[in-house]
């Protein structure tokens, strides 16, 4: 490394140290790291809830104590019901997401790359998008029956649009200056897509996949509430029918945990694919 490069790097390190000094002088006397601040209120609410439920200020069949909900989940885990329901819901989400995201990827790529395909397809898809997706449920039930396929179709529909939209828009807006670099090196259309367009749209595409996955979870709840004999949504309906609030609240918790888990897997995969790049 020549002295020139060392000079280039110095200012950045210097500013980093400067910032460090600033934050140190700013620190107040109460030392609570920022990441713990967000926990204070939820934990407070849980403690108050537990206390009020134990004192029977809250009616126990409407507002069961957090420990009672935990116990319900634990019992289901022991007798195996939990794994059955979580498993089937997870399978529906994953399958529906794969179908919807694949279609979204295909159509998004085609409309993003070929202007003619966009002019033909985009108006139709955009108008379909403005239909609230739950409105399709009666039609799906009529066409596909009450079994799995109608549920998968509904979840796929939810996952489709964010993936389609993000990919299509991102492909249209790839920096033409970078595409020109590909032209200079005489890349074929295929190489252009593989070496320039795909890596360029990857960040937006991953955002689309993540929101598609989020919507898949939203739609699995709808699908299972509307008629299912298994799954976390079914547990909720069952809890409502039999008047057991602990099961409903437990199911809410299960949805939250499962949704978060799949999102974490997705974002970790995305981060790995994106590597060290920042834009």
């Amino acid at each position: 490394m020549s002295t020139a490069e060392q000079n280039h790097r110095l200012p950045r390190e210097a500013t980093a140290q400067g910032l460090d000094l600033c934050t140190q002088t700013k620190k107040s006397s109460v030392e609570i790291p920022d990441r713990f601040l967000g926990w204070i209120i939820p934990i407070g609410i849980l403690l108050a809830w537990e206390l009020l439920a134990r004192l029977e200020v809250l009616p126990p069949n409407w507002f069961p104590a957090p420990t009672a909900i935990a116990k319900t989940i634990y019992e289901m885990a022991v007798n195996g019901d939990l794994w059955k329901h979580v498993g089937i819901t997870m399978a529906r989400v994953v399958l529906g997401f794969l179908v919807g995201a694949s279609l979204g990827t295909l159509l998004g790529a085609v409309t993003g790359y070929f202007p003619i395909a966009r002019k033909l397809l985009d108006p139709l898809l955009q108008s379909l998008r403005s239909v609230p997706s739950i409105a399709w449920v009666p039609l799906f039930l009529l066409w596909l029956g009450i079994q799995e396929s109608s549920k998968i179709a509904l979840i796929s529909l939810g996952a489709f649009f964010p993936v389609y939209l993000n990919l299509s828009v991102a492909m249209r807006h790839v920096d033409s200056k970078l595409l020109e670099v590909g032209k200079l090196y005489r890349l074929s259309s295929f190489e252009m897509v593989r070496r320039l367009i795909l890596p360029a749209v990857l960040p937006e595409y991953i955002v689309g996949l993540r929101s598609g996955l989020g919507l898949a979870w939203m739609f699995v709840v709808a699908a299972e509430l509307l008629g299912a004999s298994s799954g976390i949504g079914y547990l909720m309906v069952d809890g409502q029918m039999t008047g057991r609030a602990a099961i409903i609240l437990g199911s809410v918790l299960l949805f939250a945990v499962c949704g978060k888990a799949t999102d974490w897997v997705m974002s970790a995969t995305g981060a790995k694919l994106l590597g060290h790049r920042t834009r």
Partner: protein
Amino acid sequence: MPARVAIDEVRLNEVTQDDSCNKGGTLDIAIARKTFAGSQGSLTALSDISLTIDAGEFVCIVGGSGCGKTTLLRIVAGLETEYEGSIHLDGHQIFGPDLNRGVVFQEHRLLPWLTVHENVAFGLSRLSSAERAAKAEHYLDLVGLRSFEREYPHQLSGGMSQRVAIARALAGCPEVLLLDEPFASLDALTRIRMQEELLRIWQAERTTVVLVTHDIEEAVYLANRVVVMSPLPGTIRNIWPIDLPRPRERTDHEFSRIRRAVLDEFFAHTLNKS
């Protein structure tokens, strides 16, 4: 500073050992007319351009904005193919981009998802991976950034990014290196250092260099010939041979005189037009 010179000499020796690349090529530029279609009819960007650039020559094209100097460079690069006229490189007509012309833009245009090394090797997919790596390393050595080969573009300063862009353009073994205001977005000190660097690279590689700039001092400092263009329509106003010996001294009397002459002509013309 003496240490720096020594390093440069080592690099020059390394470079002269590499004879796998073609030396500079002769460019014959003959553009009768280049128009752009606009909303208010067509606009003539270039008219009656005739210029021959010798093998190994360093030519700077200067002109104000809108004089078509960038368009001219893009035509030579093969990025603009709709025009009346023809470009020949060593007697062969040019119909589109090719590796025999390396291009450096005002922005570095490095791919943000590739490392410095991968960026330099980007256009070399026809070579085996060993040859590709050797080429990339050779040109990173030439621009003095070998130790940064694993970094990503966002980790580099503006001057370093532009040096990587130069290495990428050279890696294809071009006969002609085309640079479009390559140092315009750099600070004054970095720009002067990059000009030195470019001269060193040119002397080592013996490629033909065409550099577009709006900086007259830069043009007079670097070029064998300075081509002055004027706008509406873009055409060649004058060509100044610069016979000053190298290394040139910017504060030298003769240097100042030439720079002033080019500047006067430039402004006299601009004022007449407006």
